[in-house]
């Protein structure tokens, strides 16, 4: 196959609609294209003129898989714009809500969407019907715990209703938190077993030297909720408010999602690998021990092992939620009062699939003048295209179907959320 096009017009097992194309000429890859054709929904446009208080509910609807991420970045940006500082108990509950989303989203992706790539199945249901029923059942039970956290704190799993600019509508009862703690204690064994399952998968032996970017939290915590700074493995260390001074969004023809690049034009990576590599020391001892047992080094540059990192992060999230419950005391009022004012605010947090940045400017009456939302998959698009070029280059002698499979698996390393990014996926390998 010296000249060919490998393409998939509708990438499956991702959230949203995307496609990809790899062009091969004279036995070499000459172009890769990750195309997002998810229809644009124009959130940043119709947020204009809405009230600041509506941002967490409206932006949640960008993504049914990671609505909490949208709520967390938006409330932080709004609170900055409004000059409001929220209390530590409010922040702790938000971090715990995020733990729930990490568990349900990571386990959904790892078990239901990505594991079938490693094991050669079309879906997790096919896995379950062919000897992996116990694993799929484990994953479903485990994922359910994540949903239980989001449901207790947020009211429901998808598009939670309890998050509010300034805090919460209602703080949970301690007795309900303690009941959830019992479920989480039982989930620890599931979490360990899930790490071991992901570690047992066959991994392509490939690495890349990524520019890895993630948030940094103020209190030495593993990056999740409160991104006060942005750091990278190449020396970036800036206040999160300076995001737009260091990163650009580009509109390219193949994509309804803007592509993120550094100001110098470079691709960068956001998501589990950057968090793990840049904040390993901040993981719990148990999560670190699980990572060692799973064969992860102190550094992970093999993108196919991101599935193991997701499992380690999920274990960490279970422990973190337990810790936050143990420290929890009921508080009232559940939110600080807001006085509308003009201002600009930024919020950065770590969605399961990577960093999510929001920026708003507000009018005097607290209505939204401008909105900017930079989702993780949009930022990862250039990196996805580079992966397709570099990681597949030495595989071109394999049958078309196998190359296509590997391309899909490679893209799914990112847990791409295309509904997010467009604010999707389809593989073409073009060999003329």
């Amino acid at each position: 196959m010296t000249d060919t096009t490998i393409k998939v017009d509708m990438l499956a097992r991702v959230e949203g609609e995307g496609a990809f194309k790899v062009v091969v000429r004279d036995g070499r890859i000459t172009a890769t294209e990750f195309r997002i054709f998810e229809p644009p929904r124009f959130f940043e446009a119709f947020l204009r003129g809405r009230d600041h208080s509506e941002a967490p509910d409206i932006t949640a609807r960008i993504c049914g898989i990671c609505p909490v991420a949208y709520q967390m970045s938006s409330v932080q940006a709004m609170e900055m714009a409004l000059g409001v500082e929220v209390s530590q108990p409010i922040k702790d509950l938000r971090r715990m809500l995020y733990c729930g989303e990490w568990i349900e989203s990571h386990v959904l992706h790892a078990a239901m969407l990505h594991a079938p790539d490693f094991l050669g199945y079309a879906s997790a249901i096919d896995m379950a019907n062919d000897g992996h029923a116990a694993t799929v059942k484990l994953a479903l039970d485990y994922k359910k715990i994540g949903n239980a956290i989001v449901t207790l704190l947020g009211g429901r799993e998808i598009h939670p209703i309890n998050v509010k600019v300034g805090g919460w509508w209602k703080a949970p009862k301690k007795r309900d938190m303690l009941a959830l703690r019992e479920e989480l204690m039982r989930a620890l064994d599931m979490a360990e077993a899930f790490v071991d399952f992901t570690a047992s998968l066959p991994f392509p032996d490939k690495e890349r030297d990524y520019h890895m970017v993630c948030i940094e939290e103020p209190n030495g915590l593993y990056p999740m909720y409160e991104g006060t700074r942005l750091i990278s493995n190449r020396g970036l260390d800036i206040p999160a408010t300076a995001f737009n001074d260091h990163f650009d969004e580009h509109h390219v023809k193949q994509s309804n999602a803007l592509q993120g690049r550094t100001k110098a034009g470079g691709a960068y990576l956001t998501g589990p690998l950057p968090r793990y590599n840049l904040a390993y020391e901040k993981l719990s001892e148990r999560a670190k021990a699980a990572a060692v047992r799973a064969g992860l080094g102190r550094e992970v540059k093999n993108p196919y092992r991101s599935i193991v990192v997701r499992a380690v992060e999920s274990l960490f999230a279970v422990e973190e939620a337990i810790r936050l419950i143990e420290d929890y005391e009921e508080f009232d009022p559940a939110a600080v009062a807001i006085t509308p004012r003009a201002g600009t605010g930024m919020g950065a947090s770590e969605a399961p699939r990577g960093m999510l940045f929001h920026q708003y400017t507000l009018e005097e009456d607290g209505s939204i003048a401008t909105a900017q939302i930079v989702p993780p998959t949009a930022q990862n698009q250039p990196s996805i295209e580079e992966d397709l070029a570099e990681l597949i280059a030495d595989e071109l002698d394999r049958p078309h179907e196998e190359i296509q499979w590997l391309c899909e698996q490679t893209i799914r390393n990112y847990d791409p959320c295309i509904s997010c990014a467009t604010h999707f996926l389809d593989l073409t390998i073009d060999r003329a």
Partner: protein
Amino acid sequence: MTGRPRLAVWKFSSCDGCQLSLLDCEDEVLAVANAIEIAYFPEATRRDDDGGNYDISFVEGSVTTPHEAEAIKDIRARSTTLITIGACATSGGIQALKNGASTKDFIDAVYAHPEFITTLDTATPISDHVKVDFELRGCPISKTHLIELIAATLAGRAPQTPAHATCIECKMAGHVCVMVAEGKPCLGPVTHAGCGALCPGYARGCYGCFGPKETPNTASLSARLAENGADRRQIKRLYATFNTNAPAFREEAKAHD
């Protein structure tokens, strides 16, 4: 139907949350997969659309592009029963906020190269384009409704999803009325049941995720909201969210322009 019915899950313009609800039925999803052949569900399986017919199609999302307007006709032609799941497919969704606004202004606000973008001027429900056999409400849908819908469809009966107001569910749940007791704006009296009156249980007013109930008296509710101090813009915003294009909410929002 002979054998297991074939199910397809289709996505139009949406957030994926309603189809995710199926995967969020952790206790039921494997049983559902035994009772139904999940023939096409790209979010969950790599299996391609084989171009054949489906006994049941679940459609998520609204029609916002010329391609979608064509695709839904083909899906209808190949589906014995077509069911919309969620507010986008049933009323147009949050993206219907662009209806009546200038699409060009919207594209210019988000994209540097408007010439790369193909979109319709409106986001419209599936029923504006093809016959729909049943509509499941909600942003997102309720998992209880979804399981009831699947069970009813398999049994060949109508799903039991009451069309009365969220207000009724709220009374049944025993919540103190947030509008009467605290003066908080609440759409519970005009909103379709289904969530179990979630928001009042969390000390906030209903914001209408499930869209209008049958015969909603929106004018009366708006008058009460105004008495409680809401201005016209606040009242308009309240109706103009996730079901902004549902006729009863659309008209009431328009009345407060």
